[in-house]
C-alpha cells in the first residue's frame, strides 16, 4: 500500500490514532521480548507482534464504555482498549500495583475502567462470556458494543459454536473478531479446520461473516467500523476474520520448527506496522519527524511503565486468600 492514496481511508486523526495504537503495541512487545531475552524478567509471553493492525482497527471505533474480551495473546487488545501502561506492565510482572494486584497475570488482564472486561486462558471461552456483555447492553437499552477477540484455532472449539449461535438468535451487539494468524500453537490452520476462511462459519448461524486483510489497517478499520456500527444500531452480531501472521511462534522460546522459514521471513519483511508508517509519510498524512516524536513519547511512557513495574512490590502474602469470595468472613481460609 506504500505509495497509493486510499479513497477508503478515514480522516487523518483516525489514521494517526491507529498508528499510535499499533506503535504502542509494537514497542511494548519489543520491550517485553528484549527484557525476556536478556533475562531481566521472566514470564510466559505470547507475542502479538504482527497482529497490531487488527486491534488498532477496532480500537479507534470503540468508546471507553464499550466492552472488550480477549485471550492470553492479548497485549495488543489490552493496549488498543486503553489499559494503562503502568498497571499493565505491573500485572505482567506480578506486582501488587498491577491491574489485578498481580493475582491474574498476563493471561487474565482485567481493567473495567477501560472496558477490558475479561482475558481468558481457555481457548474459545471468552466467546460465550462476551455475549453476556452484549446482553447486558441490550437489556439496559444502551448502545454499547462488545468486541471479543480469539484465534483461528478457537473456531474449532465448542464454545465458539454455542456462543455464535446464541448471539445470532438473540441479535446481540457483539463483534466476533477472529484474529487468524494461520497457526494454533504449532498446528497450521489447514490441518485442523474444515474451511479455508473462518468467516464462512458465520453462515451456520445466519450471521454476516467477512474476511479482511488484517495487515491492511485501512481495510480492517473499514470492516470493523461496519460491524461495530451494525451492532451499535441493533443490527446484531458479525463475525470478522482478520487474516494476519504471528511473527514469533506460539510463545516466547518456541523453536518455531513448524513455521516455514520463508513464510515467516516474508511476513516479517511485510511488517504491517512498518508498511503503514511508510505509507503515512509517503502520502503526507504525517511527517517522519512527527511519527518519530510519537514513537519517542511512547518509548518514554514504556520506560516509565517498566520502571514503575520493576519498582513495585510483589503482593503481600495475605493476598493469597483475599478475593476468593466477596464476604470478608470467608477469607483467610487456611489449607
Amino acid at each position, binding site marked *: 500500500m506504500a505509495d497509493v492514496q486510499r479513497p477508503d481511508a478515514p480522516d487523518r486523526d483516525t489514521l494517526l490514532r491507529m498508528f499510535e495504537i499499533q506503535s504502542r503495541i509494537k514497542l511494548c512487545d519489543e520491550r517485553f521480548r528484549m527484557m525476556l531475552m536478556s533475562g531481566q524478567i521472566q514470564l510466559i509471553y505470547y507475542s502479538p507482534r504482527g497482529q497490531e493492525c487488527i486491534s488498532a482497527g477496532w480500537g479507534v471505533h470503540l468508546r471507553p464504555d464499550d466492552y472488550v474480551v480477549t485471550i492470553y495473546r492479548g497485549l495488543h487488545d489490552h493496549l488498543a482498549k486503553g489499559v494503562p501502561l503502568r498497571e499493565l506492565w505491573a500485572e505482567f510482572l506480578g506486582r501488587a500495583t498491577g491491574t489485578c494486584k498481580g493475582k491474574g497475570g498476563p493471561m487474565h488482564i*482485567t481493567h473495567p475502567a477501560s472496558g477490558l472486561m475479561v482475558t481468558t486462558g481457555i481457548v474459545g471461552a471468552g466467546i*460465550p462470556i462476551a455475549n*453476556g*456483555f452484549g446482553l447486558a447492553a441490550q437489556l439496559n437499552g444502551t448502545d454499547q458494543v462488545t468486541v471479543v477477540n480469539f484465534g483461528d484455532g478457537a473456531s474449532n472449539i465448542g*464454545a465458539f459454536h454455542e456462543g455464535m449461535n446464541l448471539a445470532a438468535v438473540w441479535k446481540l451487539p457483539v463483534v466476533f473478531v477472529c484474529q487468524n494468524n494461520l497457526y494454533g500453537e504449532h498446528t497450521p490452520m489447514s490441518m485442523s479446520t474444515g474451511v479455508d476462511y473462518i468467516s464462512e462459519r458465520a453462515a451456520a448461524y445466519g450471521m454476516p461473516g467477512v474476511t479482511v486483510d488484517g495487515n491492511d489497517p485501512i481495510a480492517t478499520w473499514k470492516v470493523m467500523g461496519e460491524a461495530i456500527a451494525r451492532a451499535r444500531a441493533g443490527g446484531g452480531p458479525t463475525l470478522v476474520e482478520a487474516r494476519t501472521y504471528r511473527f514469533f511462534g506460539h510463545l516466547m522460546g518456541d523453536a518455531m520448527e513448524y513455521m516455514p522459514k520463508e513464510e515467516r521471513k516474508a511476513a516479517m519483511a511485510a511488517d504491517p506496522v512498518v508498511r503503514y508508517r511508510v505509507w503515512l509519510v509517503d502520502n503526507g498524512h504525517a511527517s517522519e519527524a512527527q511519527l518519530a516524536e510519537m514513537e519517542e513519547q511512547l518509548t518514554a511512557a514504556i520506560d516509565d511503565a517498566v520502571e514503575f513495574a520493576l519498582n513495585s512490590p510483589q503482593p503481600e502474602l495475605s493476598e493469597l486468600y483475599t478475593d476468593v469470595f466477596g464476604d470478608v468472613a470467608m477469607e483467610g481460609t487456611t489449607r
Partner: protein
Amino acid sequence: MSEPRIMLTAMAINEAMDIAMGLDDKVFLLGEDIAEPSGGVYKVTNGLSTKYGAQRVRKTPISEQAIIGAAIGAAIAGFRPVAEIMIMDFLAVCLDQVTNHAAKIRYMSGGQTTVPMVIRTSAGAGRGFGAQHSELLEAFAIHSPGMKVAVPSTPADAKGLLLTAIFDDDPVLFVEQMMMYWDKTYAGDVPEGDVRVPFGKAAIRREGADVTLISYGRQMYDCLAAAELLAVDGVSCEVIDLRTLVPWDEQAVMASVAGTSRAVVVHEAVTRCGFGAELSSRIHEELFGQLSAAVQRVGGANTPVPYASNLEAAFVPQVADIVAAVKRTNS
C-alpha cells in the same frame, strides 16, 4: 409479611425468583425451556415469563456453555442472572465456564470484577433416569474455590436460600433435588415476602445427645427417619441440616459433635471424594480427642447410577444405612 403457608418445593423456588425479579430489575432468568407456554420441564419457572416477559425469562438453545457464559458476562456487567442447568449431570458440558470462569474471575481480576449469578440445577436419583441424569455433583463446585454452594431441604429454605443466592455477590450453585419438587412429603411452611435464609448457618432439625447426624438436601429427611428409629432403641440423635456447603457452618457442627462425641455424615452423592469426606476430615481434625468413634460416612454407592429400580434404590443411601452407621459409632 411473613405469614406461613404450606407450599411445595417447586412453588417455593418459583416464588423466590418471582420476588427477586420484582425487587430488582437486574435479576433475569435464562435456560432451556424455562419460558411459557410450558414454564420449564419441571414447571419450576411456571408463569414467570408471562409476568416478566421474554426479555427477563429467556429461553435458550441447548448450549450450556453459552448459557453460563452469558450469565457470567451479564453478571460482571451488573446483572444478577439466574441460569438454569436442567439436570446436574449437564454441568459436565459447561464446567469450564463454571469452574475456570465464574468461580475464578473475582480472584483473577484482583477483586475488580464480580460474578453475582446463580446456577440452579435439579439433581438426584429416584426417577429412573439412569446414569447420566441422576447425579449429585456438588463436590465439583466445592473443590473449585470461588463457588458457593447451597442445597436446601425444605421449601422455606429453598425460597430463602435462593433469595440470598440471587442477591449474593458471588456465583452460587443452587442444587434442587428433583424428587422434592412436587412431592407433598416435602411440603412445608413458607413465609411470605422477601424472607432470606443466610448462607453458612446450619439448622438443627432435631436435638439429641448421643450422636450428630449431618446432612443436607433430601437426605436430611432420612436422617430424621433414622433418628426416629434409633430413639426407640434409646439412641438420641441430633440432626444438623447444613443448608449451604460453601460456606458451611463449622461452628454449629463442631459444637454439636463436641457434645455428642459421635458423628455420621450423609449425602446422596457418590461417597468416594464426596463432601462427606471433607466433613469427616474436618471433624476429626478439630475434635479428634473428643470423639468416641470415627466419623461415619453414608453416601451414594461408588458406582454410576443404575437404571433398574431396585438397583437405583440400592444406590441411594437408605435410612437403614444411616442406622447402621450410627450403630458403628457405638461399637
